């Protein structure tokens, strides 16, 4: 199967500190890829490079064989790269519904309409409710986002990402802080998307059981470098990964 996203020698340095160091990977279309690595390994930074929040000091990124290295976040989102954020990043003073609705609206390409009323687009709201249902947040639809508990904000993040319906979904620790009960439910949601086989998913997580259960392929970053790549099982067996990342506990 073809690589939908490819990086070549992708690097970024902050001052003297190289956070992502010559990473070349291919992410296969419609597969589930996970990225693991110690704290500060450069995972989030790698996402930031892919989604355009940061621009690399070196190297390039290809999406479906187009060089997108120079494109902005917006353009990449429009092409089909969507992401969720590690630190919750929502519209704090808008309602939960409105948060999702804005994402739906963007997906429907209703962007510069200045003369029609936004409520005329009934479909958007319906779709937003649907998505909130998926992440167990429907009863909070009218709450203001800032008032949500931490775990609830994470769910909202996921709903917004789902709303964008992008070809690639970059998930940065989606279940961090989510309750024991809901982690499996969210995993279910992700699994469902995987089952549908329409989207490519890239996941950053520290929960190894999740990684093991979901991934087709695992990438390991360490000090910014890609040190291992392979199936979940290969990775767990890998000694470097064990000593650098997993520690004795697992």
């Amino acid at each position, binding site marked *: 199967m073809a690589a939908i996203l490819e990086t070549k020698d992708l690097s970024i340095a902050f001052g003297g500190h190289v956070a992502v160091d010559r990473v070349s990977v291919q992410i296969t279309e419609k597969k589930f890829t996970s990225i693991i690595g110690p704290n500060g390994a450069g995972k989030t930074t790698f996402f930031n490079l892919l989604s355009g*929040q940061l621009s690399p000091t070196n190297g390039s990124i290809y999406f479906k064989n187009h060089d997108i290295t120079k494109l902005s976040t917006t353009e990449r989102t429009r092409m089909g790269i969507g992401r969720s954020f590690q630190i919750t990043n929502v519209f704090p003073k808008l309602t939960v519904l409105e948060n999702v609705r804005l994402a739906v609206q963007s997906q429907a390409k209703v*962007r510069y309409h200045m003369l029609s009323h936004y409520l005329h687009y009934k479909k958007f709201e319906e779709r937003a409710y649907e998505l909130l249902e998926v992440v167990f947040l429907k009863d909070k639809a009218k709450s203001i986002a800032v008032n949500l508990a931490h775990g609830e904000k994470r769910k909202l993040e996921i709903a917004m990402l789902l709303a964008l319906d992008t070809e690639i979904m970059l998930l940065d620790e989606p279940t961090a802080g989510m309750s024991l009960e809901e982690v499996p439910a969210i995993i279910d949601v992700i699994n469902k998307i995987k089952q549908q086989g329409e989207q490519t998913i890239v996941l950053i997580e520290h929960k190894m059981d999740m990684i093991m259960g979901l991934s087709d392929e695992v990438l390991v970053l360490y000090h910014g470098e890609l040190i291992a790549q392979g199936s979940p099982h290969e990775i767990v067996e890998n000694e470097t990964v064990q000593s650098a990342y997993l520690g004795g506990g697992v």
Partner: protein
Amino acid sequence: MVPFILTGRSMQFIFIQIFIFAIFAMSYDILLGFTGIISFGHVMFFGIGAYSTAITMSKFDSTIGSFLFGVVIAVILAAFVSFIVGVLTLRLKSHFYAMLTLALAGLFLVAAEKWRTLTGGNDGFTFRLPEIFRDSQSMYMFCLLSLILIFFGLRRFTKSPFGRVLMAIRENENRTESLGYKIVHYKVIASVVAGVVASFAGVLYALSLRFVNTGVFATDLTIDVLLMTIIGGVGTLVGPILGAGLVEFAHHWLSGLADVHWIFERWIILYGTVYILVVIFFPLGIVGTIQSRFSNRPLKGLRDNRKANENKGRRAS
């Protein structure tokens, strides 16, 4: 309710001023309330509108034709300048943006001061009006009508999908970007809309005074309009209208008290106190506070929280 038919030219004049500043304040609300931009230089567009009209009216004969020509020039100039200002200042954050706009407006003031052949310097100049505007009643109706049309126009604008994105930008720029919206476009368009509407307010202002001087570029006016917007309630569009009315009337009424008792000669103290009281009792502006009473808007929280904190402070000390 706004009295639609009002007799007495001096009352009409006060209302005309309210309408004009309501339009100006609404344009400011597009920036402040809907896009989250604090500008200290919004008056530059107002001034552009005022001078464009005044200069065309004094250079050409006083006909409707040259008035319309003046309006066209005002709109084009304001759109152009607001576009440039928008583009120039987009990389700046909050205070820096505010200060840069202050500087730009300051440069316009200096230009008006210095380009004496065109502007008559700071004393200003008078000009003649086309026939229909000489009648106060029709001037009044014209301003009222403009206010109503602009209000509904802007309301539609803010309630459109586009307007919703503006609010999203106000809340969280980065996130809006990663939803696939080009925030630069939105901000520039908002800046142009606000600029053009403000310049139209300036056009009306010059008409209503039949006179223009460098005062139309003075920071005081930005401050006035800022206060009107905040008093009424930012992000509400009705608020600025109410704010304009309130500020004008508080002003009118308090300054009128000077005849009642010598103490009121210092009516400005009371006027300043009104501002302070508004923040204390209507922290979200009048319309904002009322709205939050009737709905579960987030804003309500801000106020209750503050009260709770205050109580806490009191109890602790």
